[in-house]
C-alpha cells in the first residue's frame, strides 16, 4: 500500500473539487505539481535527516581509521559504502584525500571513496524514490556503489601514484587526533540543522523543476522522445552524460524534469546515466581535486567515472 495515498486523495479533493478543475489539462498539471512537491519534500526531509545522522559517525578522522587497515577490493567496498553517506564537500575533500594518502591507504581505495561520495547523493536518491518508487532509488544507489568499487579498483591497478601532486607525499601529519566525541543530542541537532540547510538550498530549484515537469506531463505529447532518444539510438547515453556534467547545481531541479521526460519516451537507463552525470561529475569538483591531482590524473579519474556511468546507462536500457 502506498503511504502517500492519503496525500493523493487530499490533492485530488483540493484540485478537482475545491478548485473545480477536473478534466482540464491545467488541472492535471496542477494536481501533479502539488502532489509531487509535497511528497518529495517529505521524502527529502526524512532521507536527508537519516543520512546526516549516520554521517555524524563518519568524521574524516573516523573514515581514515576505518580505511587505513584495508587492502584492495575489501577496502574499495568499505570506501564506497562510506561514500554513500558522505557528501563531496569543498571543506573536507582535500584534507581527507591527503590524510588517506598520508596514512598509506591504497590510492584505488581512496578513489572508490572519491567516486561514491558525489555519485551517490541523498537528494537524488530521495527524488528518485518520490518520482519513480523505491526500487529505482535502490537501483541508483546500488549501481553507483558498484561503479565506485569497480572504477576505484581499476584506477588502483593503473599505478597512478606519480600523478598525485608531489607536495601531498611530503606532508607529515601529527598523529593522535581522534574523531571528536559527540552526544546523542548533538548528533540529532546537527542532522536537523543539515536537513534544514540542504532543503533551503534546493527548495527553489526543486519547485521550478517540478513545475516544468508538471508542464511537460500535461502538455507535451506522449512518445515525443521515443524516436529522438529511444533505446534504438546508441548515441543517446553518452550525449546525456555530456549534457549532465555542467548542470551540477541544479540536480534537484533536473530530476523532476527528467522524470516527466521518461513518460514521453526517454529510456530509463539514459535518464539514470544523465542524473548520475549531473551529481558525480562537475566543474567545481574538478577545481577542488586539481589541488591534489595532476591534470592527467584528473582526466583519467573523470574518464573512468564517465565510462562507468555510460556503461550503467546501456545496461539499464538493455535489461529494463
Amino acid at each position: 500500500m502506498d503511504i502517500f495515498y492519503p496525500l493523493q486523495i487530499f490533492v485530488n479533493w483540493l484540485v478537482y473539487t475545491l478548485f473545480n478543475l477536473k478534466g482540464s489539462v491545467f488541472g492535471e498539471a496542477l494536481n501533479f505539481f502539488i502532489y509531487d512537491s509535497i511528497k518529495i519534500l517529505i521524502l527529502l526531509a526524512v532521507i536527508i535527516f537519516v543520512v546526516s545522522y549516520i554521517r555524524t559517525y563518519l568524521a574524516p578522522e573516523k573514515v581514515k581509521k576505518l580505511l587505513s587497515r584495508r587492502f584492495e577490493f575489501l577496502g574499495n567496498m568499505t570506501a564506497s559504502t562510506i561514500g554513500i553517506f558522505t557528501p563531496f564537500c569543498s571543506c573536507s575533500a582535500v584534507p581527507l584525500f591527503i590524510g588517506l594518502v598520508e596514512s598509506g591507504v591504497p590510492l584505488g581505495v581512496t578513489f572508490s571513496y572519491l567516486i561514491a561520495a558525489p555519485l551517490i547523493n541523498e537528494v537524488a536518491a530521495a527524488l528518485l524514490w518520490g518520482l519513480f518508487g523505491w526500487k529505482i532509488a535502490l537501483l541508483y544507489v546500488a549501481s553507483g556503489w558498484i561503479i565506485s568499487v569497480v572504477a576505484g579498483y581499476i584506477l588502483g591497478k593503473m599505478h597512478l601514484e606519480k600523478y598525485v601532486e608531489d607536495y601531498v607525499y611530503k606532508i607529515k601529519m601529527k598523529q593522535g587526533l581522534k574523531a571528536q566525541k559527540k552526544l546523542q543530542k548533538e548528533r540529532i541537532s546537527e542532522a536537523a540543522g543539515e536537513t534544514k540547510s540542504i532543503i533551503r538550498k534546493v527548495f527553489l530549484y526543486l519547485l521550478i523543476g517540478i513545475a516544468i515537469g508538471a508542464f511537460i506531463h500535461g502538455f507535451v505529447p506522449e512518445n515525443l522522445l521515443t524516436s529522438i532518444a529511444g533505446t534504438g539510438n546508441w548515441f543517446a547515453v553518452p550525449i546525456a552524460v555530456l549534457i549532465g556534467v555542467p548542470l551540477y547545481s541544479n540536480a534537484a531541479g533536473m530530476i523532476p524534469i527528467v522524470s516527466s521526460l521518461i513518460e514521453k519516451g526517454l529510456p530509463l537507463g539514459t535518464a539514470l546515466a544523465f542524473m548520475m552525470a549531473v551529481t558525480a561529475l562537475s566543474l567545481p569538483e574538478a577545481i577542488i581535486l586539481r589541488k591534489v591531482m595532476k591534470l592527467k590524473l584528473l582526466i583519467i579519474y573523470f574518464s573512468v567515472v564517465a565510462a562507468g556511468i555510460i556503461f550503467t546507462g546501456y545496461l539499464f536500457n538493455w535489461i529494463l
Partner: protein
Amino acid sequence: MKIKILGSGCPNCKVLEANTKKALEELRIKTNVEKVTDITKIMEYGVMSTPALVVDEKVVSYGRVLTSEEIKKLLK
C-alpha cells in the same frame, strides 16, 4: 597567547573566526587571531576536519563551529 584558526576559507571558518574574536573581546584578551588557510600547514597539525582552533600550538577543537561561549571556556 597565540591563537590560530585553521580552515580553507569555507563559510564555517569565518563563523568560527568571528566567534573567537567575540570571545577574546569579552574576556578582554588582546591578541591576534591568525588565519591558516594553507592546506599543507593545516594538515601538519593533524587536522582533517576544518575549521579547527589552535591555542598556543595545541589543537583544542576541530570539525566544529564553536560558539563564543564554548571558546571562552576553552580560553580560561
